[in-house]
């Protein structure tokens, strides 16, 4: 066989090129950092920060959400800080944001990356193709917030298994892990455990997509073969992982307790944390796997329940939408535009009235006073005078003070009224009002105001017998505010 001549269908070349392309945005970060004018970017290793960011986003991914961008930036700060400890925290944050925005590729319409590669067609022709990929993807969460998730491509870049089968990579990682533990290389063991966790995240993501699709339309998901296969595969994965990780956990816990070197001890302790988290993720995935069948049956019951067809109609999804998706963009313009024109109803053209237009145009421009509208002078009405006057208020205060000698003792309202009436015929009204107000004394208000004591009135059911006033003969006393 001749070497050096590319063969048709040489997928290995294209696959390696694509894998290589996924790392390009990371290299690009360091290539472009010198152009930043707001930071001395030389001291930051942007590719490292980028990888770290992808790590953080991946670890924060669960069934329902990804991570919100500010949260990811916050978690990145300690890492960025170690690269330039004396730079202000604001700069660290800005660097973190810049890296994430570049990994999303915020400036582009599609928010992703593309790279060109060539392949040989069956007839030996060289065909240029475009590989579109994303690293961090923005998704809308159920609460309308935008979350970040890692794309499959990014997980592959991160994991380093650029062109390997999920299952075999898993087995390799396990073997590696056991080896590493036995050889005492705990730092690498941690990496291997994390890789296993990414696999679980990937299974979880695949399952989530299938369940979402099932909720929309049971028929769109192959529950006969594809989904059971996925469930089986994921269950086998969990089963294997669970057994392996419980064993590892025992192993490392022993290693941690027996280690004498502090750094080794710390590594082992961290690894215990990672493995515990892995086990938790596996359990979470297992719960979802167990519920999957029930989701399918419930949706099938819900969606298959339908009356008899009344007339022939078009299946819009299957007969129109799906075929349209397979068309070339240029070909699809007509059918989609036809649906738009026919499916949006009529537009009533708005016609300006010519008479009104002429009048508007002929109207002289209104004079505008540079000072604006004159400020209206407010009409001030004299305030209603206090019907009692400061003098009477003072006398009531004095009367209440003398009548209520100590906290804890109470006086009847009738007694207070009689006393006041003897002094001044107008005074009882003010006394009655003051006491009435004391019925609803707000202790909290008194406390916030810092009052030492507070007037309290309580109704004990005694009826007030008075010439002017009726109601309850209240018990009036003072209470100390603690």
């Amino acid at each position, binding site marked *: 066989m001749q070497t050096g001549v590319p063969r048709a269908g040489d997928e290995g070349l294209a696959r390696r090129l694509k894998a290589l392309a996924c790392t390009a945005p990371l290299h690009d970060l360091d290539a472009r950092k010198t152009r930043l004018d707001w930071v001395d970017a030389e001291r930051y290793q942007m590719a490292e920060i980028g990888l770290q960011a992808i790590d953080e986003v991946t670890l924060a991914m669960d069934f329902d959400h990804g991570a919100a961008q500010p949260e990811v930036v916050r978690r990145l700060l300690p890492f960025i800080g170690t690269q330039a400890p004396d730079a202000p925290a604001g700069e660290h944050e800005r660097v973190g944001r810049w890296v994430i925005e570049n990994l999303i590729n915020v400036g582009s319409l599609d928010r992703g990356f593309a790279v060109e590669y060539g392949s040989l067609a069956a007839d030996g022709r060289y065909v240029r193709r475009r590989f579109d990929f994303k690293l961090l993807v923005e998704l809308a969460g159920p609460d309308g917030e935008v979350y970040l998730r890692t794309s499959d491509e990014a997980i592959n870049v991160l994991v380093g298994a650029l062109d390997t089968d999920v299952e075999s990579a898993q087995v390799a990682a396990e073997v590696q892990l056991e080896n590493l533990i036995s050889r005492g290389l705990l730092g690498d063991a941690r990496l291997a455990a994390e890789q296993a966790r990414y696999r679980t995240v990937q299974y979880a993501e695949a399952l989530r*997509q299938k369940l979402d699709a099932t909720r929309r339309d049971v028929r769109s998901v192959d529950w006969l073969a594809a989904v059971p296969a996925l469930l089986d595969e994921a269950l086998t994965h969990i089963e294997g992982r669970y057994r392996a990780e419980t064993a590892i956990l025992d192993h490392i816990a022993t290693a941690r307790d027996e280690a004498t070197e502090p750094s080794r001890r710390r590594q082992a302790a961290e690894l215990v944390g990672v493995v515990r988290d892995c086990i938790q993720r596996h359990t979470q995935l297992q719960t979802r796997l167990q519920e999957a069948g029930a989701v399918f049956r419930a949706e099938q019951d819900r969606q298959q329940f339908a009356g008899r067809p009344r007339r022939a109609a078009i299946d819009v999804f299957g007969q129109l939408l799906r075929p349209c998706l397979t068309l070339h*963009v240029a070909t699809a313009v007509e*059918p989609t535009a036809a649906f738009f024109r026919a499916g949006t109803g009529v537009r009533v*053209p708005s016609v300006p009235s010519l008479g009104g237009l002429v009048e508007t145009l002929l109207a002289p421009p209104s004079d505008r006073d540079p000072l604006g509208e004159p400020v209206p002078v407010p009409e001030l009405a004299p305030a209603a005078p206090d019907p009692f006057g400061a003098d009477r208020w003072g006398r009531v205060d004095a009367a209440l003070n003398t009548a209520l000698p100590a906290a804890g003792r109470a006086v009847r309202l009738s007694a207070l009224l009689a006393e006041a009436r003897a002094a001044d015929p107008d005074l009882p009204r003010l006394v009655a009002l003051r006491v009435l107000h004391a019925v609803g004394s707000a202790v909290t208000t008194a406390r916030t105001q810092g009052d030492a004591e507070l007037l309290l009135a309580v109704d004990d059911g005694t009826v007030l017998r008075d010439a002017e006033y009726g109601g309850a003969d209240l018990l009036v006393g003072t209470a100390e505010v603690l």
Partner: protein
Amino acid sequence: MSYPGTRSVPAVDVESAARLVAHGMRPKALPARDPAYADLVRRYREDDVFADTVQRIASGLGLVVLAVGPASGLVLAAVEDSAFEIRMDEYARRTVLANRQADKVMHGLAHLAVAALAFPRADDLADDTYVGRVSVDQVDGAVREACRTLSERVAGTAEADPVSDAPQLEEVWRAWLRRPEATATKDGRAGEATTRGIVGKALRFLADQGFLVPVGPDGVYRTTPRYQVQVRELAAQRTFDELLALGVLPAAGPDSLAGVAGV
């Protein structure tokens, strides 16, 4: 029976007929809320001469009467190039010139997807009492899932990636899949050029046209009888014919529902 057009119609009836057409032009007017409108609808259904007059007035204006019913009222559609037609160029005005074509297709596709999700099965479209529910989440999610299925079909083959020097030869599903579903904007709203932005615009527009009614606070809409008539009697049929002309669909009647999946 003599041909209705040969009869003479009193001028007052012409005025009433024109009034019925005017009611039909108001997207949110409903016979149930307006007794005068309801009377005219009843008359249309009982009086052939009146119905013919209404149709002729509509036709003269460049409109077609799609349906007249007590629930939907008078449902009108514009004939091509009529003054009442809604043009895509006006609808999707704020697009970048460079991907004008792709953008137009995506806006049209969003409307198609809303109808597809509002009436998920052919029976739902045929059943007059069916009320569909749609939301941005549901529509974008379903289209994405359909795109993903298509991408899985070519995964691993040479066709997995599009040809780079002919963007117009790219398949629609690639364009939809590539476009982000949401972007974080400075003011916290969903980006307009995203797929969720495009679907959201379609839903709001249809609500303005009286085809959808918002229910609940979560951006869920329900369909109105007008929308069902519009999709069933005109839009679906016309798109079906277009696809048939392109040779995409097998040349069978629209009632052959044997899971037409694609080319």
